């Protein structure tokens, strides 16, 4: 049975159910509704504009309006920030390789604290998102600035700050070494050293094995390794046959 949307049908539906035995007893409202059946369909229908109708509501609706087919699809959200973000990471792919904190509760608790008057923030490290937010700030506060100029400006600020950051880490290391710091091996280097130990053993063993192999293969001819043996002397060049043919 189709889904019944019309209140008018309720009597018919109930009668059918009684007849077929689906309902064993008459519902309490049956007799009342039989006496005073509903006259109106109470479901509100959306207004469908018709081209020839004189309905005043038509004036407000653009003529030739068609209900789009994908009206039930979730619309794609388009933000200018996303475009800037895409452009930035496309041009700076290695920025994606930097570690990022993914722990957040609402998603905006850090951004809410930030003031994009400056690009550097107390609550978040410098990254591509800083460029995006700073660009948006510049556009909002400078009506004359085009989006490209704003992006370029904040990109340059980003480079400047990144350069300082890199310099700082480099100089700090040098300074502490000059003051006597000894920088411990990191995990990667520790593993490399461990691996090297085993590789060294393997090389020594391999060298021994190679010597044994060479010695046993040369046993029959009784010639020391490296000396020219008979095969080598008799070796002919690839072209020697051709040369002989001519003779």
């Amino acid at each position: 049975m189709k889904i019944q949307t019309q209140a008018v049908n309720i009597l018919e539906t109930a009668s059918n159910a009684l007849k077929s035995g689906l309902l064993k007893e008459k519902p309490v409202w049956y007799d009342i509704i039989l006496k005073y059946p509903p006259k109106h369909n109470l479901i509100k229908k959306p207004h469908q504009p018709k081209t020839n109708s004189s309905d005043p509501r038509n004036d407000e609706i653009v003529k030739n309006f068609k209900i789009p087919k994908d009206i039930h699809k979730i619309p794609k959200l388009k933000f200018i920030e996303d475009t800037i973000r895409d452009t930035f990471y496309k041009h700076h792919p290695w920025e994606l390789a930097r570690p990022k904190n993914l722990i957040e509760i609402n998603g905006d608790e850090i951004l809410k604290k930030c003031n994009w008057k400056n690009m550097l923030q107390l609550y978040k490290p410098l990254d591509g998102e800083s460029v995006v937010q700073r660009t948006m700030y510049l556009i909002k506060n400078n009506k004359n600035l085009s989006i490209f100029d704003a992006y370029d400006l904040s990109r340059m600020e980003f480079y400047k700050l990144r350069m300082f950051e890199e310099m700082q880490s480099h100089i700090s290391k040098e300074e502490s070494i000059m003051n006597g710091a000894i920088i411990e091996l990191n995990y990667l280097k520790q593993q490399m050293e461990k691996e090297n130990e085993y590789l060294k053993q393997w090389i020594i063993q391999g060298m021994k094995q190679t010597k044994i192999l060479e010695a046993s293969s040369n046993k029959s001819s009784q010639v020391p390794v490296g000396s020219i043996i008979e095969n080598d002397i008799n070796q002919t060049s690839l072209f020697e046959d051709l040369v002989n043919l001519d003779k």
Partner: protein
Amino acid sequence: MFKNTKILSRRLSTFSLPVNKSLEGIKATGENFQGLFSNKTINQLWFERGENLSSNLNNLLSQTSILKNDKEYSLQTIISLSMNTPELYQLHKYASNLFNLNFFIESLKQNDANKIEKKNVDALLETPKNSFGNIPTDHDFLDWINYSFGSIEEFRNLLINSGRAINGDGIVWVVAESSMSENYLDKNLPQKVPRFTNLAIVNTYNGGVLNDAERSGQISRMKKLLKEETEEDELELGSVEEAEYNVAYHNKSLIPILSIDVSPRNYLLDYGVFGKQKYLENVWECIDWDVVLRRLPERTTQLITM
């Protein structure tokens, strides 16, 4: 290294602070060093500290026997002589600090275009500005800067960034770097003339002196002392760190042409804790390029680098 910069010479076994005319004027009138230091700061930095350093140096000199009385020594010679002798550490410290102080202050001129102002905590997050003045006018020098650093903007950025990144006491030097290592020149070229092809920026920390001969191999010497000597293994590859040290300090001849003292004593009084960037920007505006040009060695444009 300090061959061409004879600034302070020894007379009657004592050194005195060289007379700087503009600074004497400032002391007499009580004015500020326009655009960089207040009167109080320049008094502390130059007169008090300088006199303290030179009197301490003279005291120590009278006690040591490394110097012959009949010979005249320059400050640079004393620095080089005392460099590798631990007993003369104090002497070396005062001599090099005095040299560094003079080298820095000498290359500054007043520039009333910039303000001396205390910065508050907001300066911590500010992005450094791009606009600047006081660009050297000498065409050849500019060309050399462009060759070595790319452009004057990049040069300034690198200079200010490396100065700002020093946490404690320290000095940023702009040096002319010879193309070949001194070790190589000693062996292969008897006449031993270093040729200068490149400008570079070098940091020294805690009143260190600029001498690549001292730096090259310094860390490995230290590490060897700490580590028990083991037989060299042919199969072992060197670490990245070792390679870095070997490449970074080649024992090349370095001639300093400009230095900026970035120790906190220089900016704390006038610019506050957060004012290091502002201080460095002001220093740039106050650099006397004429002095820098005088210190510059002859440039060799050759292609061999090592």
